[in-house]
C-alpha cells in the first residue's frame, strides 16, 4: 500500500476515483456467466463497478450490461412500499408490511382450506438467490405441503437439466470455463454467444488469437454478431438440429471414429418413446390444457444405434437441414478428431425446443461416442441465462418435481432425506409433482389455481402465447407480485411488494460452471423494500410455520446456507462452507476438503473418482455408474410456415437488454442503445414487400398481431422467409405471437419456432 501524503494546494479540488469509496465483491446480477464485480459504494450509494481482475470467470472484463449495473438500482420508479389494489380495482393504496403479510397469509390459508394445497402456487426465477429459493421450497413443500412451486428457469434451461439427468443422473455440466482456453473447436449449436455470453466469448477469441488453429463453428438459423467471428457459418432450417446431430453420429460411426474403449467402459445405450402422435407438442387437441407426456426408457445397444442412424445419411440430412453434405462431413470430422479438443456450446436454441431434451441428449451423445468428455477442452457445456438458474432453480431444486441436490419429490428416500434435514414429520412432503410452468398458468387461467405469489420475474411479458393468460383483478384469484419496479406483471397483481435488489441484500448465486458465489449487503434497499427470502419467512411465521425458519436474527443467512449444504455433502454435490465462500471468488462444487472441482467425473480432478485415469460417471447408479447414450430421432417443429403464415418467427435477446428489460431499460446508456423492439427482415423479403429499416409492419400469427418497425441489414440478419423479434420490450410483446408448444420431457416452451405472416402496416 502506498502511503504517500498528498500535498494538494487548497485551490485544487482533488477527487481521485477511489477516494472515500468502499469496494466489495459480488457476482453480476444478469446472466449465468457469473462475472466477478467489484462494487464501489460511498454514502450508502453504489457509484461505480469494476470487473474483478482476480475473478477466474471474467478476469477483470465485463460486458456493457455489467458495467451499467449501478443504474439498475436507481430508477426513480423503484417500488418502495407494499401496494394493495384499491377495492374498486382502480389504482393502488400503500399499506404496511404487517398488513401486506397478514393479507398473504390469510389468502393462502383461505385457498388451502377451500381448495387444498394444489390450488396455491409460487412462481420464482433463476434470479432468486439461494436463500430465496431455499426459503420458498422449504415453505411450500414442508409448510404448505404443496409442490406447486416453479421457477421461470422452466422456460430457460429445463431441457439442459433433463439432458444431464437422463444421461448422467446428475444435473450440471462436467466441464468448466477453462475449456475456453483448452479447446480447439467451439461448436455453437444455435446460440449467439457474442451477444448473450460476451465475456465468455471473449475468452474464446483470445484463445483463437494465441492459437490460430482454433475454430468457431456457428450452427444457426440467423446471421448474428457471433457469425461475424465464426470460421464457418452453417445456416440450418429451424428445428433440423436433431437431424444434423444424428447425421454427425452416422458419419462418426461410418468413419470409424467411435472411441470403442471409452464406450465399452463408460456408456450404456437407451431408447425412449419416439411415436410423434403419442408424444405431440403439448399445445394441440387434448394437450391444450395439460401436457403430461412421460418418456419410458428401454435398453438399446451400439448395434441398434447403427441401424437407427441408417436413415441419417449426408444427403438426407442435407435435405432436412439445408446444410451442404461437405458441411456435415466437416462437423463429423471435428467431433471425430481425437487430437483436437471439441467444446459444444448451446443455450436457448437447443433448450427452447419442442424436442429440447432430445437435442441435449444428442449433443451429449456426440461427446460420449467419441470419448471427448470430462477432459480439459472436450466437453458439452450448456450456457445459462440467469445468474442463479444453476445455483437456485437447479441445485436448490425449485422446479415442481425437485428437492435440493438433484432429489425428486416422487422418490420416497429423497422425501425422507429432506424431511429429516428439515425436521419434519415423515410423510409431510407430498409425492405428487406440482404443475410445470405452462400448465401452472393454464390452471390459473382456468381457476384451478387460485392463489399465486410471483417473485423476481415477469411472466406477463415472458410466457409464450401470452394472450391466453390474460387476467383481470376481481376474477376470484389472488396474485401477489414481489419486484423492484412496476412491470406488466405488477399491473395485473392484487398486491405488490417492494423487493431489495442485488447488493441491497446478502446473497449467493450459482453460475453455469457450478461456481457458488457469495456476496455481502453493500447498501440499504430504498424505502421499505425487503429481500424476497425475508418476505417468505414472514408469511410462513404468520401461518404458524415459523419453526421451518428457526434461525438467529443476525446470522440467518449463514445458518440457512449450512442447513442447505447438508443435502449435498458426501454425494458429489458438496458445496463449500459459508465461511469459505465469503473469502473466495466462488468455488466450483463438489468442494471437498476446501478444494473445488473444475472437471467432474474426471480422474485427477474430481475427488469422487478414485481410479488413476479416465472417467467415472459415479452418479449414474441406475446405469451401473455409466453414462446413457440416447437414440433420439428427428421430429418436425410444432408449427411450420404454410401459405397463410409463410414466415418462420424466432424471439430472443439483444446484448444490451436482459430478459424482459425491467432493469436494463431503466439504465440510460442501455435504453438509448436499443430503445424499442423491432423485427429483423431479410433484405430480399423487405425488397419484395417494399419495406426499409423503420417501415412499420404487422407480424401476424394464429395467436396475435404485433406492429413493429422493420430492421433490414441490421445486427442480426435472418435468412429469406424468416423473422426475429427481441422480447425485452413490454410495449411490443413478442409473446402474443409465440406458440405454447413444449419439449416433451422438460416441458420447456419453444420460443424459437412458429409461423407468421408479414404485412406492411
Amino acid at each position: 500500500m502506498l502511503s504517500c501524503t498528498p500535498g494538494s494546494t487548497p485551490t485544487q479540488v482533488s477527487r481521485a476515483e477511489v477516494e472515500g469509496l468502499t469496494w466489495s465483491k459480488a457476482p453480476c446480477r444478469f446472466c449465468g456467466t457469473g462475472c466477478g464485480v467489484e462494487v464501489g459504494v460511498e454514502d450508502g450509494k453504489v457509484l461505480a463497478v469494476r470487473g474483478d481482475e482476480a475473478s477466474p470467470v471474467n478476469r477483470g472484463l465485463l460486458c456493457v450490461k455489467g458495467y451499467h449495473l449501478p443504474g439498475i438500482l436507481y430508477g426513480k420508479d423503484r417500488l418502495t412500499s407494499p401496494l394493495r389494489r384499491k377495492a374498486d380495482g382502480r389504482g393502488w393504496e400503500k399499506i404496511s408490511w404487517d398488513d401486506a403479510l397478514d393479507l398473504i397469509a390469510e389468502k393462502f390459508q383461505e385457498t388451502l382450506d377451500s381448495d387444498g394445497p394444489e390450488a396455491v402456487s409460487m412462481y420464482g426465477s433463476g434470479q432468486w438467490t439461494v436463500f430465496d429459493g431455499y426459503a420458498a421450497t422449504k415453505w411450500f413443500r414442508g409448510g404448505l405441503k404443496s409442490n406447486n412451486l416453479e421457477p421461470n428457469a422452466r422456460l430457460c434451461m429445463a431441457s439442459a437439466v433433463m439432458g444431464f439427468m437422463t444421461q448422467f443422473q446428475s444435473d450440471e455440466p462436467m466441464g468448466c470455463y477453462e475449456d475456453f482456453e483448452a479447446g480447439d473447436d467451439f461448436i455453437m449449436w444455435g446460440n449467439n454467444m457474442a451477444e448473450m455470453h460476451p465475456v465468455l466469448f471473449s475468452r474464446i477469441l483470445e484463445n483463437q488469437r494465441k492459437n490460430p488453429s482454433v475454430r468457431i463453428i456457428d450452427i444457426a438459423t440467423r446471421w448474428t454478431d457471433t457469425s461475424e467471428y465464426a470460421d464457418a457459418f452453417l445456416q440450418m432450417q429451424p428445428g433440423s438440429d436433431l437431424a444434423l446431430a444424428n447425421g454427425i453420429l452416422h458419419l462418426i460411426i461410418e468413419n470409424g471414429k467411435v472411441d470403442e474403449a471409452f464406450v465399452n467402459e463408460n456408456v450404456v445405450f437407451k431408447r425412449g418413446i419416439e411415436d410423434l402422435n403419442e408424444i405431440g407438442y403439448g399445445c394441440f387437441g387434448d394437450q391444450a390444457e395439460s401436457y403430461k407426456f412421460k418418456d419410458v426408457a428401454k435398453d438399446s445397444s451400439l448395434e441398434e444405434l447403427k441401424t437407427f442412424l441408417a436413415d441419417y445419411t449426408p444427403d438426407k440430412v442435407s435435405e432436412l437441414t439445408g446444410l451442404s453434405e461437405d458441411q456435415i462431413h466437416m462437423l463429423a470430422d471435428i467431433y471425430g478428431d481425437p487430437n483436437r479438443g471439441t467444446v459444444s456450446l448451446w443455450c436457448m436454441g437447443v433448450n427452447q425446443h419442442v424436442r429440447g431434451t432430445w437435442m441435449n441428449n444428442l449433443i451429449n451423445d456426440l461427446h460420449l461416442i467419441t470419448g471427448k468428455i470430462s477432459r480439459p477442452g472436450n466437453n458439452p457445456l450448456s450456457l445459462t441465462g440467469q445468474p442463479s438458474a444453476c445455483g437456485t432453480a437447479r441445485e436448490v431444486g425449485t422446479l415442481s418435481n425437485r428437492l435440493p441436490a438433484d432429489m425428486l419429490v416422487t422418490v420416497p428416500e429423497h422425501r425422507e432425506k429432506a424431511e429429516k434435514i428439515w425436521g419434519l414429520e415423515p410423510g409431510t412432503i407430498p409425492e405428487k409433482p406440482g404443475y410445470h410452468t405452462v400448465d401452472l398458468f393454464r390452471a390459473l387461467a382456468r381457476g384451478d389455481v387460485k392463489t399465486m405469489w410471483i417473485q423476481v420475474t415477469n411472466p406477463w411479458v415472458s410466457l409464450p402465447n401470452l394472450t391466453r393468460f390474460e387476467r383481470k383483478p376481481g376474477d376470484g384469484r389472488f396474485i401477489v407480485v414481489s419486484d423492484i419496479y412496476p412491470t406488466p406483471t405488477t399491473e395485473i397483481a392484487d398486491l405488490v411488494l417492494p423487493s431489495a435488489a442485488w447488493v441491497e441484500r446478502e446473497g449467493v448465486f450459482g453460475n453455469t460452471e457450478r461456481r457458488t458465489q457469495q456476496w455481502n449487503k453493500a447498501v440499504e434497499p430504498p424505502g421499505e423494500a425487503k429481500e424476497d427470502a425475508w418476505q417468505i419467512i414472514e408469511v410462513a411465521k404468520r401461518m404458524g410455520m415459523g419453526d421451518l425458519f428457526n434461525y438467529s436474527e443476525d446470522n440467518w443467512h449463514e445458518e440457512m446456507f449450512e442447513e442447505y449444504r447438508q443435502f449435498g455433502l458426501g454425494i458429489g454435490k458438496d458445496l463449500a462452507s459459508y465461511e469459505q465462500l465469503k473469502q473466495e471468488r466462488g468455488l466450483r462444487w463438489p468442494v471437498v476438503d476446501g478444494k473445488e472441482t473444475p472437471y467432474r467425473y474426471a480422474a485427477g480432478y474430481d475427488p469422487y473418482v478414485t481410479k488413476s485415469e479416465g472417467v467415472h460417471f459415479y452418479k449414474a447408479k441406475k446405469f451401473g455408474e455409466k453414462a446413457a447414450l440416447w437414440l433420439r430421432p428427428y421430429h418436425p417443429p410444432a408449427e411450420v410456415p404454410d401459405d397463410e403464415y409463410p414466415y418462420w418467427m424466432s424471439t430472443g435477446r439483444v446484448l444490451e437488454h436482459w430478459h424482459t428489460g425491467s432493469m436494463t431499460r431503466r439504465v440510460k446508456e442501455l435504453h438509448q442503445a436499443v430503445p424499442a423492439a423491432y423485427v429483423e427482415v431479410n433484405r430480399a423479403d423487405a425488397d419484395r414487400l417494399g419495406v426499409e429499416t423503420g417501415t412499420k409492419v404487422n407480424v401476424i400469427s394464429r395467436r396475435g398481431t404485433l406492429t413493429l418497425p422493420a430492421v433490414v441489414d441490421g445486427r442480426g440478419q435472418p435468412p429469406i422467409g424468416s423473422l426475429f423479434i427481441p422480447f425485452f420490450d413490454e410495449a411490443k410483446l413478442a409473446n402474443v405471437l409465440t406458440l405454447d408448444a413444449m419439449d416433451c420431457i422438460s416441458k420447456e416452451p419453444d420460443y424459437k419456432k412458429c409461423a407468421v405472416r408479414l404485412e406492411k402496416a
Partner: protein
Amino acid sequence: MRKPFAVAMAAIIVGLSGCGAAPNDVNLGITIPASLAARSQRVAYSGAPPVIPHARQSGKCIRCHNDVGARTPGIGSGLAPANPHLQTPGMSDQSRCRQCHVFSQTPENFRDNAFVGLKLPTHGDQAFKGAPPVIPHHQFMRENCRSCHAGEAARPEIRCTHSERARCVQCHVKQSGNEGLDLADVK
C-alpha cells in the same frame, strides 16, 4: 515507509528534467470538444465504457482506434483516440469492442433514473508543485496511458507535455486504493 522517499526522489528527478504536471495551455491549433464535461456525458461513471459518440462507420473500430489514434475528418471530433486496452490481459486488437461500447439511438429515457456515478478525477495529487502527479484512477483496461494523455485527441487539461518518454509509471505511481479488491479486507 520507503515509498514516499522513492516518490519524492522520482519527483525531484522529473523536476530537474523539466517535466511536471500537464499545463492547460497547450495549443495544437485544433479545437478539442472532448473536454472533461463532454467526456463525463459519455460515461455512466469514472471507469465505465464510454458510449460511442459518433455515427456508425463501416470497417473495424481499430482501423482508427489503433495503438496511436488517428485523424478522422468528418467523424466525431475529427480525432480518434488510441485504443487504451491493447495491453490489457485477455484483450487484443481482435477483441470485440461492441461488447462494451454501444451506439446511442435516442436521447430519450425509458424511465427517469437518479443514478449519480463516480465523478471523473480532475487531476492527480502532487507531493509538491512540479512533482509528478499520482495516477488518480484504476488502471486496468487503461494501461495505454497515451490513449487519453498523449497525442492530438487528448483533452488539453490531461495532456502530457512529455509523451516522448516511454515509461509513464516510472514517475507516476498508483494512488493508494487503486489496486484490485483484497478479500482479506472484506468482512
